[in-house]
C-alpha cells in the first residue's frame, strides 16, 4: 500500500512540476513575443493551485522519507542505500532483492523510453510555437514511466 501511495505522490509531483513549468514558460514566451513585436497584446490567467499541490506533495514525500529513514535506522541489518527512497522496500532481504530487480527493469525501460521521446521531437519541429507543453510533459513522463514500471515489476515479483 505504501508503495502505491509513494508512486502516486511522486507521479503527481512530476505532473504538478510540469504544469508549473509550462505555465511559467507559456507566460514568459508571451512577454518575449510582445518584446520582439510579434504580438501587440496578450492575456493570461495565473492560478496558484498547482503550486500549492506541488508544495503539499513535496512536504508529504519529505515527511514519508524522514519517517522511513527513522524507522529503518532501528533495523541494524538494513543498509542506508536500501531505503534511501520511500519507494524502496527494505523490510527484509527478499524485499531488498526484489527492489533491486524492479529497479533494473525500470532502468531498462527508462533508457528505451528516453530514446523514443528524444526521437519524437523530429515529428514536432514546431513544438516551441504550437506545443509549448510538449517538452515539459514528455520530460515528466520519463520518471513517471520508470515509477510505473518499477511498481508493476515489484508487485509481480513480490507475489511469486
Amino acid at each position: 500500500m505504501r508503495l502505491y501511495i509513494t508512486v502516486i505522490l511522486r507521479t503527481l509531483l512530476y505532473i504538478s512540476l510540469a504544469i508549473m513549468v509550462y505555465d511559467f514558460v507559456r507566460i514568459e514566451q508571451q512577454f518575449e513575443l510582445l518584446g520582439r513585436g510579434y504580438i501587440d497584446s496578450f492575456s493570461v490567467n495565473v492560478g496558484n493551485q498547482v503550486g500549492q499541490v506541488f508544495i503539499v506533495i513535496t512536504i508529504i514525500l519529505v515527511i514519508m522519507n524522514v519517517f522511513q529513514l527513522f524507522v529503518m535506522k532501528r533495523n541494524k541489518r538494513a543498509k542506508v542505500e536500501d531505503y534511501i527512497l520511500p519507494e524502496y522496500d527494505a523490510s527484509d532481504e527478499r524485499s531488498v532483492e526484489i527492489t533491486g530487480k524492479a529497479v533494473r527493469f525500470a532502468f531498462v525501460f527508462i533508457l528505451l523510453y528516453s530514446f523514443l521521446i528524444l526521437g519524437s521531437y523530429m515529428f514536432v519541429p514546431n513544438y516551441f510555437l504550437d506545443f509549448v507543453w510538449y517538452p515539459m510533459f514528455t520530460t515528466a513522463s520519463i520518471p513517471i514511466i520508470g515509477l510505473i514500471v518499477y511498481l508493476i515489476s515489484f508487485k509481480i515479483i513480490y507475489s511469486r
Partner: protein
Amino acid sequence: MLVNRVKELRAKYNLTQGELAKKIGVTRQTIVSLEKGSYTPSLLLAMNIAEVFNEPIEKIFIKREEEE
C-alpha cells in the same frame, strides 16, 4: 536448485508462517515464497531458520540437480 523442509518443520513445531517470520525477522510473504521454493534465502537467513528449528542447515536446505 535448493529444496527445503521449512513447511514440514514449521508444522512439526506448530508455528504459523507469521510466527516464524517474526522469529527470523522477515515478512510472512518471504516464508510463503520460501515454502513454495521460489526464493533462495541468504546464508544468514538459512542459519536463522536452522537456529529456530534446532537442526543443521544441510538437513533443512538440500541441493538438488535441476531436472532437464
